[in-house]
């Protein structure tokens, strides 16, 4: 990792992606570590996406969605909790630090919070060091 980690971030269209936009409108600066993928709902984020990201070499995966009760699709964020838990257990088994995966609720009004979460997570990943999966074996089958 050229010191700055690379983080794949999933953001739900209705709350968190709007929150990320608000950080921009408010010109709140944060490290350029994230690559945001917009999904309609955090409940769309399959554990497979998370594993794929880490296998592809991402140093961290951030999943963001509406606060509990705010989900535009009523219960998508509850589904996200379940999916993330599943992914976490798999990471634990595979010996990949579960701290590389983070789930956060960020509302459309929480621009500062989005920036803060990215700052913290980036720092946390820096402490963990680079994703070492690629060190042995070939990259993509």
């Amino acid at each position, binding site marked *: 990792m050229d010191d*700055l980690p*690379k983080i*794949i971030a999933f953001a739900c*269209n209705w709350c968190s*992606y*709007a929150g*990320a*936009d608000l*950080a*921009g*409108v408010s*010109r*709140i*600066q*944060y*490290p*350029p570590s*994230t*690559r*945001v*993928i*917009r*999904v*309609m*709902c955090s*409940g*769309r*984020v*399959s554990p*497979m*996406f998370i594993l*794929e*990201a880490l296998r*592809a*070499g*991402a140093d961290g995966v951030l999943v963001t969605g509406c606060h509990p009760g705010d989900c*535009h*699709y*009523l*219960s*998508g964020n509850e*589904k996200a909790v379940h*999916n993330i838990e599943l992914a976490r257990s798999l990471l634990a088994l595979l010996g990949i630090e579960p701290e590389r995966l983070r789930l956060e609720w960020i509302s459309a009004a929480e621009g500062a919070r989005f*920036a803060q979460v990215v700052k913290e997570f980036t720092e946390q990943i820096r402490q963990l060091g680079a994703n070492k999966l690629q060190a042995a074996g070939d*990259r*993509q089958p």
Partner: protein
Amino acid sequence: MRQARDRAEETDESPRIGVFVCHCGHNIAGYLDVPALVESARALPGVVWAGDSLFTCSDAGLAEIRAAIVQHRLNRVVVASCTPRTHEPLFQAACEEAGLNRYLFELVNIRDQCSWVHMNDRELATAKARDLIRMGVARAALLEPLSETELPVQPEAAIIGGGMAGLTAALSLARRGFAVTLIEREPELGGILRHLDKLYPTMVDARELVARRVAEVREQANIEVLTSATVQAVKGYIGHYELTVRSRQFGLEMDLPVRAGVIIVATGAQEFKPFGLFGYGDDPRVLTQQELERLLAESNLQSPISNLVMIQCVGARDETHPYCGRICCLTAMKNAMRLKQQNPQTEVYLLYRDIEVHGTHFEDYYAQARDLGVIFTRYTPDAPPQVADGRVLVYDELLGMRLSIPYDLLVLSTPLVPAAGVHELARLLKVPVDEHGFFLEAHVKLRPLDFATDGIYLCGSAHWPAHLDEAISQALGAAARATTILSREQVRSSGAVARVEESLCRGCERCAQACEFGAIEFVELERAGVLLYRSGPSLSQKIARVNPVLCKGCGACAVVCPTGALQASHFTSRQVTTMIQAAMGH
């Protein structure tokens, strides 16, 4: 995952992608190396044209896009500028004007989520933007042209419940020229008002008012009234529901089919009967407010009554019904005042916890009651009133003393509770009820009259105990919500909805369980091959079908589907994983 997942490469010739990088004046160009971004974009697979413009969203910028689509035969367009939340529709429209399906457009956000938040590191910010554009282009290559299905709308409404709310909604829709079927369980229309005396705060006669409404409904040619009628079955979805209504007409019972584009639920609520509390059910001197009111209405109250005690919050704000009944304080005051007016000698005590008379006109009403000499006594749940041989014992916290009040009549104010049969109706309509059995709306704040299921609406005390003016507002409101559907010939779906690869479907129903919008149904499908097995049950097989009009495109079904039969169009697994790979530079 080619054959099922990637229609684009089959339905469409190979991708010819055009990339437009926006300067947004200084906002992007000031912090990112735009020329470098254009260069790297040009080198990406599938990209046949890349350029930049000062403001891509300006008329000039949009014209450039339209021109490029034609000139370079682009079949995918990627714009790298600001946020899709505000600008996607604008660019999609431009694509459509140039003959490109709007779902073949991808917007990459390099302003709000890049140039504006990394103003002090041009190099890294540019590197990020480069990745974001690579991701956008990779996704664009897999985007599929999607079509937005349309379903015809039956311009008729079915309204369940013939109380004040149902009547009001029916009249509003009828005045707009829509046919209405009004379904009432009782032999008569009118609901709870038929049993009331006067209405607070106007003191208008309840039965006269409701009789007038019923007459108006009866006069309306395009309202069909079914009394002694209950819903037996509900089929269909927004646009065309089919209800089976069992109705007793002229002594004979029959099942009638009712077709409707929308359904309004106005089934009201009923007064809680507090058996076993304060001697209710055993002692004839113990009544509920509604029972008292009926006596007042039919003016056969055994006068003279010298002492009458009312107790508020009986069976409310406790473990049985944790909520506040909303209308009980006003009901009690109304009846208390009627008694005072009939006979000023009558002592009326009103034992309350909190006087619930919110809003502008009710506070004065409360003042009137005190003027007329109604005695208000505040009790707390830790020292609740008790009854013993014709007396009510209560500790008045504010007086700081224990009172012992004799009574000829003890009137219990109990909360409204859901009407009987609510759960059965909810099951038939596939809509939720809350923990108390009141119907649960789509969103507590902004969609109080809608169900999450499109085409079904809600009003009156079926939703929550309501004052009459509230019930009327909600009824008119529900009618307006219904009209947004009834007034159009078709309902249109988004193209970005779930779709089913039928050959893969196992009919396990996990998708339907994950869907909050009832958008997935199952059809029995014959499979010729199966005949070669003797096994009976496998002769036909359940297959999922998505109703694109009901689907909201959240993609939850695609995550739980074990076989990959359910796919979230426009956010397919392949599109997402390709973006992940692109982000990592693969």
